């Protein structure tokens, strides 16, 4: 475990560091995917960065509103650098809204943009999962398997590594399909064998859902990330239900769109 990276007098928490790295990697992979989909990769960077800035502002504003009595007595804290003074969900909603507004204003094709974001998001989630592993967060269940890791005196599934491998696998499949589609399109000049707009994003959602549904069985329920909802309902692991639900929704959408492509 390496929760803190000590560089001289500087102590850097590894999880936030890897989350930042995950964000950068997500945008970089997304921009590369955008070029394979034959539109400007800078749009992915721009949408991502505008979304991030909008999300941070909204998350801080929500925190200020929620805890106004505290900020009223310390108004300068509204602009402070405290990295925990944010509310997650308003930030996420605002980030998605701002990125969506950018896509709308630039008249960019939505489905190809989602296809471009998809593999990058999976790569980002994989890096964030490895950050959780280094920090000892969201630990796995106890086990005697040879590859178990020791955490607080108990040998546990490296469930964060399982997650990362799963997400990277789905991202690799997505990227391979993207490259294959791009090569076929270039080769014959037609779109018939290319990637149907939106299919990659749905496939990534399917893959994400299946990974979460499978991997959550190996996590200690008490430490599962919940974002406010219970980890268990009637003994059932909530994240497994979320993962399976996402996979089934994606399969339904892929089925609805399954038809021979036209030139």
């Amino acid at each position, binding site marked *: 475990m390496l*929760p*803190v990276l*000590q560089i001289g007098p500087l*102590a850097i*928490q590894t999880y936030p560091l890897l989350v930042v790295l995950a964000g950068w990697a997500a945008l970089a992979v997304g921009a590369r995917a955008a070029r394979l989909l034959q539109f400007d990769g800078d749009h992915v960077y721009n949408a991502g960065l505008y979304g991030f800035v909008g999300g941070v502002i909204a998350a801080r504003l929500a*925190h*200020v509103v*929620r*805890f106004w009595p*505290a*900020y009223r*007595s*310390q108004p300068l*804290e509204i602009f*402070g650098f*405290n*990295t*925990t*003074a944010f509310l997650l969900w308003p930030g996420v909603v605002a980030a998605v809204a701002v990125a969506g507004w950018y896509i709308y204003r630039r008249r960019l094709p939505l489905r190809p943009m989602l296809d471009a974001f998809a593999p990058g998001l999976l790569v980002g989630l994989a890096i964030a999962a490895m950050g959780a592993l280094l920090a*000892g*967060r969201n*630990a796995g*269940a*106890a086990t005697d398997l040879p590859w178990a890791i020791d*955490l*607080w*005196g*108990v040998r546990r599934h490296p469930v964060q590594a399982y997650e990362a491998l799963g997400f990277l696998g789905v991202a690799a499949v997505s990227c391979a399909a993207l490259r294959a589609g791009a090569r076929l399109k270039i080769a014959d000049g037609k779109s018939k064998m290319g990637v149907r707009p939106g299919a990659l994003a749905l496939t990534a959602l399917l893959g994400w859902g299946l990974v979460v*549904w*499978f991997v*959550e*069985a190996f996590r*200690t*329920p*008490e*430490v599962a990330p919940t974002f406010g909802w*219970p*980890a*268990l*309902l*009637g*003994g*059932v*692991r909530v994240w*497994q*239900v979320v993962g*399976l639900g996402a*996979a*089934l929704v994606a*399969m*339904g959408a*892929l*089925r609805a769109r*399954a038809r021979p492509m036209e030139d």
Partner: protein
Amino acid sequence: MEDRRWKVLILVVALAGAGWIAVNRVPGPDVAGASAEGRLTGQPLPAAPAVGHPAPEIQLVDTAGERFELSALRGTPVVLNFWATWCPPCRAEMPELEAAHVSLADQVAVVGVNQGESQAEVAAFAQGIGVSFPLPLDERMDASRTYAVRSLPTTFFIDRSGIIRRIQVGPLTEATLAQSLRAIYP
């Protein structure tokens, strides 16, 4: 893929998915304080300085010479703050912790574990800044090691059952303290 094949595939995934979820269901009731890991493995989740784990025990002596045991506070939410007089952010957050101690007296226990300093140093500092909550002295850094404290200040928010619900690395403001308290109180 033919539509019929899609339907079959979706059905197979749904059934297999539900089966895997059922196989991995945690037995027993979801009772607050009852360890799910305990119900699964027969061994409760071990004490560890991590969210979701029971807080490790601390046994120290405070500036008044009184024995302090974290386990004695079971049943009360605890704000367990690690600090030192030489740490500027620690000093900056002391008024917020003192205000919480005063306003939430008998409802939330605020404890400031001093890292590696003498009783005289800490007592003089506390008197100068007006701190009245318990200040156990971790002179040999045993508690700091147990709690894997690598930077100051670090604050653990522990619920009534003794489970760590939130860890704050860095100084608390009035707003972030109010936010963190929501994880353990009421």
